[in-house]
């Protein structure tokens, strides 16, 4: 096994460059190192202008999602030893490039903020915590692990064609609160996403499920919302208008 990996990295400054290009860098590596270690090596030693986000380097902060050898993942979790000798790295799709691998996340956050991403519920009357059974709490497992890295958003074919589509991360967040026994805005949440730019834009392509580094399974979360919206419409609680 060679101790050199060839990094082919997407480079683009829309203000200066006519079109994007790939730059090639040789990186000496050892077992245990990740793609992020390789990028850091490049920035420290070869080309200081390479732009990308990173922080925790342990797969929990969600900064460094990018497209690596054909798949979206967190650069800090992707071990170099699992990759071929040539590693091709591109930025997240469906978001505009500011520079290189550093994309404009504003549309992603705008959609996150649009879905009321906070608990709406009655305060406890005792001044202490609200009671939630272990079973009720278990419904939230996995979906609360989302690190908002936007891998799913970039992988989604529907986000590519509909700029208004809320996308898998924001919709999973809707389901996170819909599933919470403490939340009292369930019908409001369903109504909010029962439209063409909400859950019904999802065509169940499973891209988000495949790429999610935290096994959140956005596809299943969106499907749960769809099922509940339809049940609500059948029982007349939710209007069918706009669907």
């Amino acid at each position, binding site marked *: 096994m060679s101790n050199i990996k060839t990094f082919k990295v997407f480079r683009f*400054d829309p203000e200066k460059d006519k079109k994007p290009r790939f730059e090639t860098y040789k990186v000496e590596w050892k077992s245990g190192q990740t793609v992020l270690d390789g990028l850091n090596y490049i920035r420290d030693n070869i080309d200081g202008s390479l732009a*990308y986000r990173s922080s925790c*380097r342990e797969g*929990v*902060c969600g900064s460094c999602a990018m497209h690596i050898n054909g798949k979206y993942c967190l650069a800090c979790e992707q071990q170099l030893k699992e990759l071929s000798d040539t590693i091709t790295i591109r930025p997240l799709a469906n978001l505009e490039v500011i520079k290189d691998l550093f994309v404009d996340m504003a549309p992603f956050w705008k959609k996150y*903020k649009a879905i009321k991403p906070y608990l709406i519920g009655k305060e*406890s009357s005792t001044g202490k915590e609200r009671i939630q059974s272990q079973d009720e709490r278990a419904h939230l497992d996995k979906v609360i692990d989302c690190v908002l890295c936007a891998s799913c958003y970039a992988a989604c074919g529907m986000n590519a064609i509909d700029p208004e589509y809320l996308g898998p991360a924001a919709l999973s967040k809707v389901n996170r609160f819909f599933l919470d026994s403490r939340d009292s805005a369930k019908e409001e949440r369903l109504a909010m996403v029962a439209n063409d730019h909400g859950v019904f834009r999802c065509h169940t392509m499973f891209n988000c499920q495949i790429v999610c580094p935290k096994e959140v399974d956005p596809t299943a979360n969106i499907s749960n919302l769809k099922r509940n919206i339809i049940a609500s419409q059948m029982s007349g609680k939710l209007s069918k208008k706009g669907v």
Partner: protein
Amino acid sequence: MKYHSVIVVGGGLAGLRAAIEINKKNMTVGLISKIHPIRSHSIAAQGGVNAALNNHHRGYYDSIEKHAFDTIKGSDYLADQKAALKMTSNAPERIYEMESWGCPFSRTPEGKIAQRPFGGAGFPRTCYSADKTGHMMLHTLYETAVRFETQNERNEMTIYDEWFVTRLIVDNDVCRGVIAINIAKGELEVFRSEAVIWATGGTGRVYGKTSNAYSNTGWGMAVPYYEGIGIKDLEFIQFHPTELITNNVLITEGARGEGGYLVNNKGERFLANYPDSSKALEVAPRDIVARNMKREILEGRGINDKYIGLDLRHLGAKRILERLPGIRMHSIHFAGVDPINDFIPVAPGQHYTMGGINVNETTGCEVKGFYAAGECSCISVHGANRLGGNSLLETITFGKIAGDEAANYVSAGGSSPVNASIYDKILSEEEAKINDLLNSKGKEAHPKIRSEMNNIMDEKAGIFREAKTLKEGLDEIMALKEKYPNIKLLSSNKKANFELLDAIQLKGSLDMAEIILKGALNREESRGSHFRTDFPKRNDEKYLKHTVAKWNGKTADLSYKEVDISIYEPKERKY
């Protein structure tokens, strides 16, 4: 030029909690963070947050006083005692508030917030959400901040994410705002304000072997330090006992709280062989466990001479999957080991900065309108050694207090207006500094200086310290500081220049490293996390006092300050 009544710098738990408090009081707030708030290092906290809620069947007799006592004893009596009691008294209310805002805590069979045992605690009082408590709390506070930000009837909250603060504006001991770079554009801007709350986290990255995120460079502490604000007790660096030997990713103390064993190369639970951990074993406080692990390794009983085994196998797959799923994935990703089938290879590494910006229990200091909370601050509630589960607690209790105090200061009229020309003057100074860095004719590679600093700190300011190596380390850091003005950047563009941010922050890291070494060299005793092999005993007569470092324009000058011991009399620490 931008204006908010209050500026908060830092978007982790302490910063978000402070910003929410200001907004609750219908005052405008701008929160500036060099990374998006959800990326803050608070997210990496695992095991939990302490509060005497009495929810655990063995926690019936717990109380805020006992929590305070454990905190003070854990601090090796260097905590300011009234401040510690203030934190533990506020704890239950803050935790219930987090629950009311939606934090998905794990639950007891009765449906209450679940609590687990943690090091140095007399009762199981660490509230948790599996082993991802920081993640859950940070998401909850960001969600709450978004609620305030998006509700029109509220006064404005603006989050400036990916803005990097280069300068705190202080004029005649009054705080007037900050200067920050919009990272994407590379342009500097003035943020005027009546008050500033500082919440920028720790300085772990001065070390190489650290659990901390790349973001924790210490620059956040350095910025107010350069304006004359003191840095307190920075020699007290917490080394967490269980970090993965491969890349120092944290393995929560909760793994031991849940019943995990630490074993040497003979398979012994060696903590039983040391008088200071013989009773509490794996749930003795972090400083003691880390030291005894290091002793085992140094004396040849480490596994492969390098590490200790953290054995969870006897807990069984079900409990590991339910209570410790995060560290299981960390072990698989970064060490190639599944704790269900094998022990986890761990060793102690840098984890937390007990010291920090010298503020009092109101989070304020001698500079009017400046407040600090969270890891960047030193109030001091952690003294010489922080108990696990108290850092998350500190962020939300003192984050709220900082918000309260700043809002009260502003409502009471703040300070008299300042001549607006100071803003232009300071902005041009900052612009000149950045241009100098980008166009430097020097030859030194800044990443090389950083890695040398990391090695020096790992080798010479670690768990076991002595005068000779501390002195060497200090000389070497001073030599690196001499080199710093001659650094050369590889890139000279302003736009989205992350190398520039690294280079700026390196200066702060070096100055924090200097303070750590100076404080450690001067403190000729062993207390909490600071262990001097040449002075192995605690010396209350000479050193029951806080170290305070002040910037003299080039280096740090040290002085000392009284500790508040008004509640509990200092005693010898045993577990």
